[in-house]
């Protein structure tokens, strides 16, 4: 019942915060959001799931299965549960929500109760996405995330917020449509062999090779088409180049706390779904198309990093670098090795923390200077030494400094990809992708040198002072988490490894 508790509490909290006067909304929301943090950490500490929730022999923790409605031949259930992949992501969601709420206190100055209400509503939906084990339930949560995000960008965003919000909405909705169609093609292909839309049942039916023809197309074609549709649907969310252009616009217009959640959690919906659907249910198709997917991954890494290098806006730099980092996730997934898939999942969590940290650091500077353009400022370390220090730490974390979580994640991905027998010429692919670690150093060092160091100069009219504690405190929390996970990756990696190990053996012989 704990998953339900999390979701229902977040929904209730959202409702309560909507009703609270604006001046208390921020504090009230933060306090309320501590409850899911506590609950999820407690769940983490008593976590007893084993294996992968979708696969035979896997036993998710906190599982609830209750029949909900029956649609034709299919039972739609309230089926939730957490395994080693979803548990860390739920913890990430609750933690980042609280920190994002605190970091919103300074920059969000109008319609606060609505803002925090939407954030909490989105948290409920996000937890649902990671916990749902029934397709329709999952899809409802998946779509439900879009609504608050749309408003958060469209109402509280920057000057071009309408454009960015619409773009985000259209992009992700088209993606949802395509993935929905793709998934139901599979469902129809499975025919009588399934009687529910439960994800484990479907995954196991597919693994057992029970896919039939649909509309005259053989199982192979159906699988491939479904794979392509699902891949596109999730690739938009991740985003994978070339489906990424909504991301920089959304990030630039979104207020900082929203960017934190967008980069920190929403992007992980895409990689999480890729892992669940494309690389677990349809592992054989993924294996067969490994070259293509690996190219997508490497292009995302290098091209994303190059784009980041060309930017002048701090937030755009971080936004594009997310594309690069998510490329590593794809690379790890397609490797189909324990380190590859495990590292990719670990990277989802790690990047959630580090990109959140990075966006917040940019946000703190923006709060004080009201600019994010590299050319508009220099020597900020002179006036905001603490913020600058955290910024430097965050940037090095992003560059994959050892003993911080990004390094652990990336090294695991690289090791996994290097020894992959699925990707052809795996060492070469891996080596090319690894060049990303040089480019990331290039653009972040350049950004730091221009904005933080050198003689002090600021081209805006604002009086710059030290950032208030409420702005800086979340940074320290995140930094501590990033270091903790870098020193002890096993805090999450152990359960991740347990959940993804079976995945790496999928799609070898079975299937249609």
């Amino acid at each position, binding site marked *: 019942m704990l998953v339900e508790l999390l979701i229902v509490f977040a929904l209730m909290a959202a409702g309560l915060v909507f009703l609270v006067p604006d001046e208390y909304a921020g504090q009230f929301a933060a306090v309320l959001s501590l409850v899911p943090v506590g609950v999820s950490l407690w769940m983490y500490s008593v976590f007893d799931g084993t294996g992968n929730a979708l696969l035979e022999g896997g036993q998710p923790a906190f599982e609830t299965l209750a029949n909900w409605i029956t649609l*034709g031949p299919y039972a739609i259930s309230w089926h939730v549960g957490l395994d080693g992949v979803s548990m860390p992501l739920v913890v990430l969601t609750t933690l980042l929500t609280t920190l994002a709420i605190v970091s919103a206190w300074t920059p969000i100055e109008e319609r606060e109760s609505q803002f925090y209400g939407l954030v909490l509503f989105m948290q409920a939906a996000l937890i649902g996405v990671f916990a749902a084990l029934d397709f329709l339930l999952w899809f409802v949560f998946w779509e439900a995330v879009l*609504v608050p995000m749309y408003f958060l960008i469209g109402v509280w965003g920057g000057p071009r917020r309408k454009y960015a919000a*619409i773009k985000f909405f259209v992009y992700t909705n088209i993606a949802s449509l395509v993935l929905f169609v793709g998934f139901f093609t599979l469902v129809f292909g499975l025919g009588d062999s399934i009687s529910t839309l439960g994800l484990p049942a479907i995954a196991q039916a597919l693994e057992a090779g029970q896919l039939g023809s649909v509309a005259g197309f053989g199982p192979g074609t159906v699988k491939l088409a479904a794979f392509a549709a699902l891949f596109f649907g999730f690739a938009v969310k991740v985003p994978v180049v070339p489906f990424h*252009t909504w991301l920089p616009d959304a990030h630039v217009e979104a207020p900082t706390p929203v960017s934190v959640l967008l980069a920190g959690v929403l992007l992980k919906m895409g990689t999480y779904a890729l892992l669940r659907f494309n690389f677990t249910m349809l592992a054989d198709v993924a294996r067969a198309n490994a070259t293509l997917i690996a190219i997508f991954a490497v292009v995302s890494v290098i091209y994303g990093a190059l784009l980041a290098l060309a930017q002048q806006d701090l937030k755009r730099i971080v936004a594009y670098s997310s594309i690069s980092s998510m490329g590593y996730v794809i690379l790890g997934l397609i490797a189909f090795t324990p380190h590859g898939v495990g590292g990719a999942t670990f990277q989802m969590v790690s990047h959630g923390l580090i990109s959140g940290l990075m966006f917040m650091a940019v946000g703190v500077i923006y709060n004080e200077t009201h600019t994010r353009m590299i050319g508009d400022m220099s020597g900020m370390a002179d006036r905001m030494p603490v913020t600058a220090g955290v910024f430097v730490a965050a940037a090095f974390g992003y560059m994959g400094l050892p003993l911080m979580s990004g390094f652990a994640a990336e090294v695991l991905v690289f090791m996994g990809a290097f020894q992959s027998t699925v990707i052809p010429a795996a060492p070469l692919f891996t080596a090319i992708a690894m060049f990303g670690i040089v480019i990331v150093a290039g653009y972040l060092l350049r950004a730091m040198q221009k904005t933080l160091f050198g003689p002090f100069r600021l081209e805006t009219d604002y009086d710059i002072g030290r950032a208030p504690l409420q702005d800086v405190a979340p940074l320290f929390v995140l930094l501590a988490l990033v270091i903790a996970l870098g020193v002890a990756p096993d805090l999450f990696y*152990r359960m991740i490894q347990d959940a993804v190990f079976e995945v790496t053996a999928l799609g070898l012989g079975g299937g249609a």
Partner: protein
Amino acid sequence: MVSAFEFVPAIAVLPLVSFVVALAFGKWMPKKGALAGIFATVGSLLISIWTALTVAGFLGSETVYHAELWRFATGIGTFNLHLGVFVDPLSSLMLLIVSLISVLVFIFSLGYMNDEDETGLPRYYASLSLFSFSMLAFVFADNILMAFMFFELVGLCSFLLIGFWFREDAPPSAAKKAFLVTRFGDFFFLIGVVGIFATFGTGLFATEAGFPHMAEQAITGEMPGPVGEFLSAVGMGAQQWFTILGLLVLGGVVGKSAQFPLHTWLPDAMEGPTPVSALIHAATMVAAGVYLVARMYGFYLLTPTTLAIIALIGGFTALFAATMGVVKQELKQVLAYSTISQYGYMMLALGSGGYVAAVFHLTTHAVFKALLFLGAGSVIIAMHHNENMWDMGGLKEKMPVTYWTFLSGSLALAGIVPFAGFWSKDEVLYEALIHGLGSPVLLVAWAMGLLAVFLTGFYTFRMVFLTFHGEPRSDTAEDPESVRWNVKLPLGVLGVLAATIGFINMVPVAKLTGLKIDFLHKWLVGGEVLNAEFLTGLEHYEPILKEVAGIKASYIAGGEIPTLLISAALSLGLALAGVGLAYRLYAVPEPVAHTKKLGGLRTLLMHNYYQDEYQVWLAQGVTLPLARAADTFDQGIIDGVVNGISSVSLFSGDRVRRIQTGVVSNYAALLTIGLALLLIVFGIVGGWF
């Protein structure tokens, strides 16, 4: 009885504690964090001494130590990714060097930073402590992943310290360059690390479970199962693949040890405070690269191609950097190029099978280069931070302690008998010669190294004469600021060591007299356990050198002793010739530059062979425009297509505008209706209703 080995982790942890203390509380501490650093590094030094004594066998029978400290991943099917301690003669010697230099640098910093009323001292001492921590942990790393991790942290610390004066323009830029150039090398290193794990399933340096041993097995003995599988997957022979791995790791070495072509960051790194330069050049960052090759020497010995490349890079860098050192006008610049050149010698030694010679030169160089940098620091204090040698002159009488210790360091650097550098450099060249006689590539490398001896003697004493001799050439040189005990003490200690530390391995004397005084050699040969169990002793390396790498010694003029004497006479003669030329040109009351005589070469040297230019061009002339082109492509083509599609479809410009003007609830309605429609369509198609 407690063993020193149990406390080895504390050697690194103490400076880590001091990092935290200085960062958090330095502001309120009497010397702004310096005392924390001094206490910590003195502690490290004491434990290092204790450890070295234990390794020497004075304090019990256990002389090698290996322990796992912390495992990163314990799940099913993971590699053993861990932090561990490995103490053998090599690492215990290096621990000693690093902690000694760290202590002295901390003490010197009291004079260089505190007495000069610098701001940001807690940050300075915190970074310095972190630097010592990273390097010490790197030194006792028992596996290559851990080595890489601390190698990177060393890079971070150099970034923080080179850019210490961040309010100016040049230091942050130099810091960025240092990190970026070494990162470029580390990119290859990391591929190497990943490749080693993927190939061998382990990154251990020592024991039979370590990757050097598995590689040796793969080449000479029975192919270990997983290695064979991986090799057939990549479709390469063992030696070919190991050569690639070795070269990849070497990328990191070339970056950190500032070897050609990744040496360009190092002269710029002089923007950092001088004590930092001493630490970087003598004992930490730059030494890390060479140390790494020595640490995994058992692996490099298996691939003669890699060895030859190491030797060539080393010999070339030694000569190449020395030529640039000849025309520099600033004190620290001369020293910077001398560092690059001297590390070239160590690489030359490693590549030509001179393991002991390399470690010996690493040791002596640590002492005399730290001394020279601290001496330069003392001069810079005296000169009110003017580093131009042409404004100095005549400082000899005014700062005798600095002068005499600096002279000791210079004699060592130039390789004048009996100062430390003579013994080690002579051994480097001797090893390169005897092994090069059978191998033309090594012989070329040796010849370059030998030529550089002359240049070293010349630029070193050009620096000494311009700085300390003649008449003062500026007002500050007339009346230099005096320095205190905290400057003189480290100089004194190092000055004595620079004169004497060569005595630990006087190979020529040992060979001539038959006395067993080649202590360092014996130290690295190690005992039974080291060679049979841990496989990192010289006794284990020597047969591999002969049999697998095919590097054998041959002699000229009829034997070992004559070759030895000829080699020593050659290097000493050339060094003296260099010193003599410098004396003639610059030890005069009013020296002039004399660089015009170099003609066109002068421009080339002044511009450092345009190495910076092409690397900056690669970054700013190639990568940046490429990034901009990608950005234009992204905005114009990819996003353009998206916008194009949307404008001809449902969301045409006109309608988008209409949607945008709608009240927010419309969007929610839109979404809900869309979802409902979707479900209904599928329900009908699927026959649910």
